[in-house]
């Protein structure tokens, strides 16, 4: 038996550190000296995570050159980089609205060979722990996975001045009819407009379209024939445009996400149906005037059901990367249960996608806002999207172009430039042209 002394003890500790789980199943530092380039749009998860990169480097030997850019800048640059099969990036964010395009075109690497192989990934990393609704956008039709998610958006109804709703003797609306009823009762009270939305109608309006029985495409992703100009679609567009114009603040048709949030935060507008990412700051931001009066509820349901929007963003490996194994080591570490729990515990990150983390007491504590268990609402919406797959419309490759047509149509209806049937019909015709140009077959 070897003699126990200081040197063997130190050696043993070092070996144990190198063989740490979720870093490198083989032990040692086979990646010593390797530098990987990773990129994402600016989001708080990586603002927090980059503080721990030295620990990752210490464990694996991999140096991470991580860059973050504004959302539109990132998407533009990455789309170009991926489309030319470049090797400049080893890890990149798979943006929700581009996931269909990037995955469908073969620009991303399937991750199944990594996470299904014990050589690369220990079983306790648990890929099934990621919420199915968030992960569905990161898979292709064959079910292969191309990214793991770090950020999910779950659409809720967020009221910044719930006190006004209570004062009117009402509660958070549960149906579209309730929503109008509540808006009627509170609009203009205390100088607060009843409703606000940003200009991305292709995200905000779709739950109202679906709740009314309409759909964007016939049967995505197989049949992408646009169907949003159906009678249900026209009625939903007219109803939504009226909601915006009657109960929204002036100028909201040009509002960005942030402007709509600021309108709520400054107490100028009350309800908004939007992803939770834009609701949490109403309670937590130091400059918020509505921190104590904000309440959350599920998105109101329409006659045909409840279809709250959900989205997700994940990290994947570009097809052109020459350091795929090292890239997987990074993804594995960044999204391990340990790392995600740490980010929630130390920084209060609200948009995680691992079920075990969402159900943890710490996350519940972080997401208990004004006494409400918002974590439960968040998980409910994410799971809803995964169960029925109604969000598939959004990850088809041509959705960005089709979405633009929807945005313009709603604007035209709201500003009364065009009647709803004509505006929707025109938008649908243009969408069909876009699809045909992109080589998709549409039903006659």
């Amino acid at each position: 038996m070897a003699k126990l002394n200081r040197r063997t003890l130190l050696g043993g500790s070092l070996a144990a550190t190198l063989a740490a789980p979720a870093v490198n199943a083989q032990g040692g530092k086979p990646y010593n000296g390797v530098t990987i380039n990773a990129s994402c749009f600016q989001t708080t998860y990586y603002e927090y995570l980059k503080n721990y990169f030295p620990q990752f480097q210490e464990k694996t030997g991999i140096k991470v050159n991580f860059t973050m850019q504004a959302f539109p800048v990132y998407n533009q640059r990455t789309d170009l980089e991926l489309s030319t099969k470049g090797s400049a990036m080893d890890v990149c964010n798979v943006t929700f609205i581009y996931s269909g395009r990037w995955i469908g075109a073969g620009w991303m690497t399937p991750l199944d060979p990594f996470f299904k192989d014990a050589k690369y990934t220990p079983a306790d990393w648990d890929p099934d722990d990621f919420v199915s609704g968030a992960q569905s956008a990161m898979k292709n039709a064959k079910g292969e996975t191309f990214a793991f998610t770090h950020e999910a958006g779950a659409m809720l109804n967020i009221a910044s001045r719930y006190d006004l709703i209570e004062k009117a003797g009402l509660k958070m609306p549960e149906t579209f009819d309730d929503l109008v009823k509540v808006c009627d009762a509170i609009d203009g009270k205390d100088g607060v407009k009843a409703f606000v939305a940003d200009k991305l109608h292709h995200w905000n309006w779709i739950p109202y379209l679906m709740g009314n029985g309409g759909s964007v495409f016939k049967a995505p992703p197989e049949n992408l024939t646009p169907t949003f100009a159906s009678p249900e679609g026209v009625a939903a567009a007219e109803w939504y445009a009226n909601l915006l114009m009657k109960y929204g603040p002036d100028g909201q048709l040009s509002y960005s996400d942030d402007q709509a949030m600021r309108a709520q935060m400054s107490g100028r507008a009350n309800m908004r149906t939007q992803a939770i990412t834009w609701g949490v700051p109403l309670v937590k931001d130091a400059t918020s005037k509505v921190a104590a009066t904000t309440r959350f509820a599920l998105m109101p349901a329409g006659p045909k059901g409840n279809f709250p929007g959900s989205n997700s963003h994940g990290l994947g490996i570009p097809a052109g990367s020459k350091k795929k194994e090292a890239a997987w080591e990074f993804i594995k570490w960044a999204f391990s249960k340990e790392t995600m729990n740490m980010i929630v515990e130390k920084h209060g990150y609200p948009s995680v996608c691992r079920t075990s983390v969402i159900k943890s007491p710490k996350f519940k504590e972080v997401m208990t806002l004004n006494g409400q268990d918002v974590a439960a609402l968040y998980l409910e919406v994410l799971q809803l999207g995964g169960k029925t797959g109604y969000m598939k419309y959004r990850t088809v490759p041509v959705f960005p172009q089709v979405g633009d047509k929807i945005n313009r149509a709603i604007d035209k209806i709201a500003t009364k430039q065009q009647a709803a049937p004509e505006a929707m019909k025109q938008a649908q015709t243009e969408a069909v042209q876009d699809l045909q140009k992109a080589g998709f077959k549409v039903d006659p």
Partner: protein
Amino acid sequence: MTSRGARLSMNVFAAVLAVLALSPFLWLLVMSFKTNAEIFRFPPRLFFPVTFDNYAALWETDFRTSFANSLVVSVSSTVVSLAIGVPAAYALSRWTGSGGAAITLWILASRMAPPIAFTIPYFLAYRYLELLDTLTGLVVIYLTFNLSLVIWMMRPFYDQLPRSLEEAAWIDGATRWQGFTRIILPLSGPGLAATAILCFLFAWNDFFFALILTRTEAMTAPVAVVNFMNYEGWEWGRIAAGGTMIMLPVLVFSFVVRRYLVSGLTGGAIKG
């Protein structure tokens, strides 16, 4: 109405127009001295507590590097464009052969299509040449676009200068180069100033090529400002402060050369 009254009305009208034209800039400037809460106060207050935090924050971020990148790239591309383009314009002006007009027309080729048409070729070529995310790469891009501007702006200046001036210098023993540098060039000061400012503006204000061809090292100020639009919220104060900073060098530069600007822009318009 007396002529004095008419002049007064015209001046008032001009002042109102100037305020209207400058109002977006004034709004941006005022916004840059407000806190985020003050920016979204409704209705906005005329008098508010002024903060310099947004400018201080710019200094603490990578924006200062991007600002320096913008200065280096814009000044370099302007100087190189003038250094190559001005003699070229002079040569084309004095060309007596038949190909001069055709060559001048082909020089405009880089301006014959929208920049997006050149995106993929430039991107691929730059990746191959390892010029992506380098200041040199940006200088070269701006040079290719500015050269045609320099030649097309300067050639009419030289066309209107009588050849007898340089011929007199040659008779006195000057070489062709000396005739150009000592006689012709000093006479084209206004044109050079106007051309320089347009070249500088093109490079300084460019967003598209800087977006596509840079990452972090060579990122310029216009792209850096967009980076204040975070996914979870925009930093309005910093965006305004960054926007103001971007406008500042152009204002200073224009102010310095304003004396030459009008005559420079119209100098070659009427030959005679």
